[in-house]
């Protein structure tokens, strides 16, 4: 956990400064008063100094998830967008293949058209390609500009496009095929950053012997975290809560040296 130590004219002043330094809202920082030479707690006592140590309460939670996503991804999106006119050989091969009659099924072509229709409102240049088709799924890939807009924060626009494409195409259950939508290999990159986040948080749980909760993930994201930590015997992962509120908790397992066992005890 990252601490900052700040001095202010009053306790409130010090807290606000600390919050700015940590880049989180005032309500979301924890503080410890190191020295308080003023008398009243919230009074603006002139000339006196209050020193506090502060940390972000959110750090191990969704904030961390955001940091992972926001610091690691957007720059790469821009770079890759530059090189995308000349894609990897596999991509162009797939494109050629999908142009050949009989390669893509009617279903896949329908899915491509529906997604192209949706994407057209967000970017004039973006095109949709049938990247892969198996008996149970169709993988569609979006190429073009406006990458940030089409992917959205934490992939939410891409997920919405995928969700709607599925609903719009698979109206009758009997011929349903799962449609997956990707752009600039976002899914793979997201998976990689989720994996590294999972490993990092797992180490933190082992070190502190306290469970950590990660919020704001969809079922697919949670699955990646579960799978990443599955083979670590010192850790146990569980999802708790329902629907949108469902979150994932990483618990430490066993281990004798635990001083604060109440948190992990509740898990088993």
């Amino acid at each position, binding site marked *: 956990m990252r601490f900052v130590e700040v001095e202010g004219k009053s306790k409130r002043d010090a807290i606000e400064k600390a919050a700015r330094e940590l880049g989180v809202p005032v309500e979301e920082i924890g503080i410890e008063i190191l020295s308080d030479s003023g008398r009243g707690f919230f009074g603006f006592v002139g000339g006196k100094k209050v020193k506090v140590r502060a940390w972000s309460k959110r750090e191990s939670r969704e904030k961390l998830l955001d940091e992972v996503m926001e610091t690691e991804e957007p720059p790469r999106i821009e770079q890759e967008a530059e090189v995308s006119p000349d894609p990897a050989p596999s991509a162009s091969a797939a494109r050629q293949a999908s142009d050949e009659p009989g390669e893509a099924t009617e279903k896949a072509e329908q899915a491509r*058209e529906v997604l192209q229709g949706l994407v057209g*409102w967000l970017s004039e240049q973006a095109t949709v390609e049938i990247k892969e088709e198996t008996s149970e799924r169709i993988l569609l890939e979006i190429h073009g500009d406006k990458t940030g807009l089409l992917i959205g924060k934490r992939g939410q*626009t891409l997920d*919405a496009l995928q969700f709607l494409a599925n*609903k719009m195409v698979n109206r009758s259950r009997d011929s349903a095929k799962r449609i997956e939508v990707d752009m600039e290999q976002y899914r793979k990159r997201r998976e990689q950053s989720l994996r590294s986040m999972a490993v990092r948080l797992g180490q933190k749980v082992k070190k502190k012997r306290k469970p950590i909760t990660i919020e704001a993930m969809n079922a697919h994201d949670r699955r990646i975290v579960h799978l990443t930590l599955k083979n670590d015997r010192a850790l146990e992962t569980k999802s708790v809560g329902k629907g949108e509120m469902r979150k994932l908790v990483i618990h430490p397992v066993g281990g004798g040296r635990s001083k604060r066992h109440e948190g992990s005890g509740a898990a088993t």
Partner: protein
Amino acid sequence: MTAPESTDNVKDLIEYIAKALVDQPEQVKVSEVEGEKTSVIELTVAKEDLGKVIGKQGRTARAIRTILSAASTKIRKRSVLEIIE
């Protein structure tokens, strides 16, 4: 289904999505109440089709709103979707 002609009209976007989701596309009606900064897109569908545009726990409605807000970002105008019951 063909690609949209005008990409600036979010009303058509909602109509495009709704018609593909419902059983009675001819009953889909979309109107736009334009404000200075925000416009309200009102979607009406056949009673039997309401569930199709809302979805389980409102997931479909949420996905439509996500795409609507992305499309609105592009034309720099905020729009909100109201599903009329």
